[in-house]
């Protein structure tokens, strides 16, 4: 296998990405797909905000609003935020621990394709009779009776993409446990690696209840089972429990890596060691643990009783303690540092107060009696957008600027970056700050319109203006990205000049095997240590230059994912479905439905059998090849002439 990229045709590039198992390329696919869905869901949000700009507006209908609402929430959480976080995990974590790739490169690719195919399947609903419309929580009491196939798309799409997420989670855990470079002990791991580990563990325990719940709803709606139908002895609250046992940890699955990203950004630009490293690690683990103890705070008004409510209220408030520790640690890292306000740092500085505001409203909602007032009002919408946009989206935008040089060997434009930041940040606060008051004044969430003259008009108007500003901010960011393609390549290590962890010790563009020799880690912030000691080569190495063992590419993950999609269509058009029998949805004849299910799953299983019968031992890159690749790259960095491996 030669590294030198000859001029490849378009088809060869597509094939390369369909079959790749390289964590760096998979990261790029996650980033691209996540951004696409972020744009779609953002557009849906804009449509909703335009509808709500004025009272009694008729821009979109009630039914369409419900579909937009559901798709916006579902897409943003599962198909935008999660994959973009996975993009950074894939791109950065193997480098941070000095590994050549992840533990299961094949599964890494499978995880991506399952996510992507599930996402595409969910979005096909728009063209095949209507999108799901029961909210991202899809409570059984609503969704069981939702006509058409919308909810079925939700169930099956999330089932497929959820399987992908679970697989990726397992992969990251194993990678971090077994593939760390010599000297990289657990307590020397950078915080982004730590948060990836904890967040993946949350995926491990949180996604199965979702899978289980979705499966129950699947057979309930499509095959006549009776889990949630009370006339048949079922119980709709079971769904709510299963959903929130998943749903609450899900918010930590997203926000912990965001914390990790900021814990990387802040020390670099404060030019100071992260304050309170071990307490940061401890807080991360504690948040992950407590995250499973609090799900019923979403169900205070269901009527679980005063005792249950009290316990869950106290548990929820307890999470504020480790979270507060983190906030203080960030502040104390910045304190007394020699601060450089770059674009990523700007996002970090914007993040701290925004996230704290979201946390404070969270503790307010944890007070069960108060939540009876706040529940299902715009106050909730304001709260979760403060944590989600203020905490997660700022982390993603900031890290995009931060890590772009490593991922693409290009830098994003700082001027446009500052512009994006301010427009987005002001827009964000305009949109969501006033929603706190809308909620307190009694405006319910998930409504498609409202009557004028209740004192809500001005705030709704301001909120929509803010949303438009956020949209403009995102468009500038996209322009920035497109411009970066033509910009000067970075061609060096440590783009920001103050990198501390291993990912900055390696020169871009990266060869496909990452470090040519596995680095030796001599302490926390290993690259910083080497720089302090005047090491010009980046790192010291743990091994002499030798053959490198790398995994083979494979098309099977893609085919397996297609198989699941075929089977999903079979289940969707099941003639035994409640809605099909009620005449509100089309069904296929039994043979067709069964043939699709069996054929689709058969295809997936056949691929698994092929995979297990064909020995796949990977391949070796010889020392001569490594040297020629490194020479190529050096030549590319010096002269800009192609021949560099990318």
């Amino acid at each position, binding site marked *: 296998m030669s590294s030198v990229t000859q001029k490849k045709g378009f088809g060869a590039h597509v094939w390369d990405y369909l079959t790749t198992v390289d964590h760096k390329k998979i990261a790029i696919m996650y980033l691209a797909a996540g951004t696409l869905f972020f744009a779609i869901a953002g557009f849906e949000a804009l449509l909703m905000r335009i509808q709500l700009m004025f009272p009694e507006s008729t821009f979109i209908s009630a039914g369409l609003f419900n579909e937009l609402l559901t798709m916006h929430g579902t897409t943003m959480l599962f198909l935008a935020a999660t994959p973009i976080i996975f993009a950074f995990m894939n791109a950065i974590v193997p480098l941070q621990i000095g590994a050549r790739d992840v*533990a*299961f490169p094949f599964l890494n690719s499978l995880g991506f394709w399952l996510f992507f195919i599930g996402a595409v399947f969910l979005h096909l609903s728009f063209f095949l009779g209507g999108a799901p419309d029961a909210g991202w929580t899809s409570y059984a009491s609503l969704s069981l009776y939702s006509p058409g196939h919308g909810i079925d798309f939700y169930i099956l799409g999330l089932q497929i993409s959820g399987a992908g997420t*679970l697989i990726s989670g*397992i*992969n990251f*855990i*194993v990678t971090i*446990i*077994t*593939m760390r470079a010599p000297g990289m002990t657990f307590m020397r791991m950078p915080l982004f690696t730590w948060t990836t580990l904890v967040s993946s563990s949350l995926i*491990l*325990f949180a*996604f*199965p*209840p979702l*899978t*289980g*719940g979705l*499966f*129950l709803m699947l*057979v*309930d709606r499509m*095959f*006549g*089972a*009776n*889990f949630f*139908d009370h*006339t*048949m*002895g*079922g*119980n709709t609250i*079971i769904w709510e*429990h*299963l959903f929130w*046992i998943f749903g609450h940890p899900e918010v930590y699955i997203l926000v912990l890596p965001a914390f990790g990203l900021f814990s990387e950004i802040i020390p670099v630009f404060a030019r100071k060691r992260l304050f309170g490293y071990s307490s940061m690690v401890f807080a991360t683990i504690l948040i992950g643990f407590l995250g499973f103890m609090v799900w019923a705070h979403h169900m205070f008004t269901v009527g679980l009783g005063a005792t249950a409510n009290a316990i869950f209220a106290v548990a929820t408030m307890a999470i504020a303690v480790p979270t507060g520790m983190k906030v203080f640690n960030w502040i104390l890292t910045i304190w007394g540092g020699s601060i450089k306000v770059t674009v990523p740092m700007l996002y970090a500085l914007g993040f701290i107060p925004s996230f704290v505001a979201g946390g404070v409203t969270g503790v307010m909602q944890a007070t069960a009696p108060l939540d009876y007032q706040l529940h299902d009002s715009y106050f909730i919408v304001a709260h979760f957008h403060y944590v989600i946009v203020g905490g997660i989206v700022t982390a993603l935008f900031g890290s995009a600027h931060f890590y772009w040089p490593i991922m693409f060997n290009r830098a994003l434009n700082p001027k446009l970056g500052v512009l994006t930041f301010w427009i987005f940040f002001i827009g964000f606060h305009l949109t969501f700050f006033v929603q706190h008051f809308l909620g307190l004044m009694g405006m319910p969430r998930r409504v498609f319109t409202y009557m004028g003259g209740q004192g809500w008009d001005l705030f709704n108007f301001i909120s929509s203006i803010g949303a438009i500003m956020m949209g403009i901010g995102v468009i500038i960011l996209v322009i920035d990205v497109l411009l970066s393609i033509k910009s000067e390549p970075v061609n060096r290590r440590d783009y920001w000049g103050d990198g501390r962890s291993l990912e900055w010790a390696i020169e871009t563009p990266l060869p496909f095997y990452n470090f040519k020799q596995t680095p030796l880690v001599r302490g926390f912030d290993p690259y910083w240590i080497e720089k302090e000691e005047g090491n010009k080569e980046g790192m010291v190495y743990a091994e002499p230059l030798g053959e490198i063992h790398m995994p083979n590419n494979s098309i099977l993950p893609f085919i397996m994912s297609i198989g699941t999609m075929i089977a999903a269509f079979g289940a969707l058009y099941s003639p035994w479905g409640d809605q099909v029998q009620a005449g509100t949805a089309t069904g296929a004849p039994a043979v067709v439905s069964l043939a699709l299910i069996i054929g689709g799953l058969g295809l997936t299983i056949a691929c698994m*059998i092929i995979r*297990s*019968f064909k*020995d796949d*031992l990977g391949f070796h890159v010889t020392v001569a090849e490594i040297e020629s690749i490194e020479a190529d790259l050096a030549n590319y960095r010096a002269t800009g002439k192609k021949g560099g491996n990318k």
Partner: protein
Amino acid sequence: MDINQKFTPQTWPKHPEQATLEGKNKLVGLWIFLASDTVLFASVFATYIALKDSGPAGMEFAARDLYELPLAFIMTMLLLTSSLTSVYAMYHMKNYNYSGVRTWMGITVLLGLGFLCLEIYEFYHYVHIGFGYTQSAFSSAFFTLVGMHGLHVVIGLVWITGLIIRNSSRGLNLYNAPKFFAASLYWHFIDVVWVFIFTVVYLMGVLG
């Protein structure tokens, strides 16, 4: 790792399943997967417990009259024994005795098949007397929980059979040793889950 490397019982490593990085990854990965599978089963167990005996008004089926303990007991014995035979297979693997691995894995498969046949018979019987999948919330929960375990058994059987067929002529090496080990670990997991099903569904169904 060289797949053609020849071993003798003397040169064969003490822990062949962990002798390579791939093997180690595989086992850590499987343990972690089993942790998440446990949560999946826990969710369905909880659902079953919540919905036990509940159905449309006037439903005539109740767990107390439905289950046959002797049948469930035989199934339990078959599965427990199959776990033991897979331990024998692993014992032979550590001693680099491939025919022992093959024989005992084969017996494991046969016992698993026996279990599966009894389960199919049981399901068939229930459907026959009117306790079908869509009959009530109770029936849906029962078939989903026990059926999900049954599906795990089927996957285990296909997996082990596949391993035996694929490696029938080439013996043990450091590439397939972790695979056998992983399959047997998974098989133990199925066994443990069944112990819970036997207790929660059958024993507590008949007694409670």
